[in-house]
């Protein structure tokens, strides 16, 4: 078992709004490059990303689009409460997170005559529930009208859904933005192309993370298409590096790994990447900064090793890097 490092995240290190609303370009956020080969951490701007990659490297991105998954539910006899849709299982059946305690079989009303019934908790923590929706209109239309992006306490204002989409967003389905892709802009993509770095995509629909609880990520749906599996294998065979854009991409790729090869696959994954398990298909990871004790930190250690990662995080806190979905990012390159 790896030991979860504990650190306190100062309020000054929290990104409370998108960089564009802080006077920065999307691609103007900071980039901390943590290179296990040299054992060094280096400060940069995200726009400089292509200069840290090599001709023949492959970036793998998540093309899942964020859905406005936060709804308001009402009990007949109580005040309204927030309901976060997390993962669509099939049809109207969801894994959802009521932000207040609910009881088995309880029914609450939604906007416009809609309703939700909480069937049974997913596990004994009773944070996530299997829930059945009954909506008056198709889901997409209902969410477009009555949903909002899921927002946690550190984001102080409501921002539009567009602020929660990455340039890669194509397939709607994520409860929370796959945020490592957020700083990418057209010009960064064009610079990457000019630098001989290719881009391939997977789809993984993120569930709710509920960062105030420090739990392992739950089961999520993913798709690694054949063209991406082929590109990953060809890149590695030729000595190029595969850099995952986001922990979701690592999860999807490793779920599609058979030995040291990627195979096209799709389905549900429970996989949690730890240093003990290791990573077989990704040589690098671009990711945001994660909360203390988050299970994602285990995945990061699998790329950079605990001492270097601890050093990086200490440096990031000290020099004012910003955490969360609108914050700065880190490029971890394995040795």
């Amino acid at each position, binding site marked *: 078992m790896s030991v979860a490092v504990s650190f306190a995240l100062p309020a000054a290190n929290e990104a409370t709004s998108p960089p564009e609303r802080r006077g920065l370009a999307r691609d103007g956020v900071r980039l901390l490059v943590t290179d296990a080969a040299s054992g060094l951490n280096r400060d940069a701007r995200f726009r400089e990303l292509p200069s840290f990659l090599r001709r023949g490297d492959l970036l793998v991105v998540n093309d899942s689009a964020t859905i406005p998954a936060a709804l308001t539910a009402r009990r007949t006899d109580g005040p309204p409460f927030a309901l976060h849709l997390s993962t669509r299982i099939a049809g109207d059946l969801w894994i959802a997170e009521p932000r207040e305690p609910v009881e088995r079989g309880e029914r609450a009303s939604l906007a416009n005559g809609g309703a939700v019934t909480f069937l049974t908790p997913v596990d004994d923590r009773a944070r996530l529930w299997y829930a059945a929706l009954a909506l008056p209109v198709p889901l*997409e239309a209902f969410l477009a009208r009555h949903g909002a992006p899921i927002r946690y306490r550190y984001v102080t204002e409501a921002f539009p859904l567009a602020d929660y989409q990455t340039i890669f967003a194509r397939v709607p389905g994520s409860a929370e933005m796959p945020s490592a892709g957020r700083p990418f*802009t057209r*010009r960064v993509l064009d610079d990457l*192309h000019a630098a001989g770095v290719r881009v391939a995509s997977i789809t993984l629909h993120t569930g709710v993370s509920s960062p105030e609880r420090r739990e392992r990520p739950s089961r999520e749906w993913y798709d690694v298409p054949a063209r991406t599996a*082929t590109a990953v294998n*060809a890149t590695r065979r030729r000595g190029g590096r595969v850099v995952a854009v986001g922990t979701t991409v690592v999860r999807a790729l490793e779920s599609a790994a058979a030995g040291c090869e990627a195979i096209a696959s799709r389905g549900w994954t429970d996989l949690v990447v730890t240093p003990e398990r290791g990573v077989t298909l990704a040589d690098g990871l671009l990711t945001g900064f994660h909360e203390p004790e988050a299970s994602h930190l285990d995945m990061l250690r699998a790329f950079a090793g605990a001492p270097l990662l601890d050093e990086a995080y200490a440096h990031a806190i000290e020099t004012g890097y910003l955490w969360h979905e609108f914050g700065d990012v880190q490029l971890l390159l394995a040795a």
Partner: protein
Amino acid sequence: MNDYGWFERGHVAIVTGASKGFGLAIARELARAGISLAIDARGEDALAAAERELSQSVEVVAIAGDVADAAHVHRLVEAAERRFGRIDLVVNNASTIGRSPLPPLEQLSPAAFDRIFTTNVYAPLHLIQHALPIVKRGSGGTIVNVSSDAAVEAYAGWGGYGSAKAALEHMSRILAAELEGSGVGVIVADPGDMDTELHRAAVPDADRTQLADPRDVAPALMRAIASPRPAYLRVALQAEVPVEA
């Protein structure tokens, strides 16, 4: 069947500016997927060559003309309907950069500005207006408007083109709102810097080896078209260099 989801052999697409560059690359991908084509371009010879090539795999109607000419656009839609009886996809690709080298807005004449808007905004609207009633008769369809990051970023010298593409994008969003529930989706596609005639006119001294080949970008558009159809999608396309196994 082909690799492209809801698309089926026998479906019909209109692609403007399809004799060269990105338009031809899109038309080739559609032809490979078995989609019948109605195409246009200003240059008759290049269009005839494209028609010869594409008609080896699918049925093709080619009408030479300028999309800035509303009567031509009308003829194109009529020809598609007469030949195929249906239209499933409209790709507004034809576009102009205006005068080269690109003048700053201070020196851009209203007449030149108007010409850019005629080709890049009014023409797509005309095509959509003529084609939509036919698209709606089917089980669903997609309108693709090819845009640019110049619609979003403020690049000096790109005032006419960038403003026109911004107008096209907002028009697309409003169209999507108006089409909600109709089964017709709207896609705005930003293909990025490609090695095309338009790019050479805009940036004559660009290092062409650094630019994406439109043939590598078109497959990304195909997948955007084929993915589950949201009412509105803006997609930044990335060149996909085929990596052999």
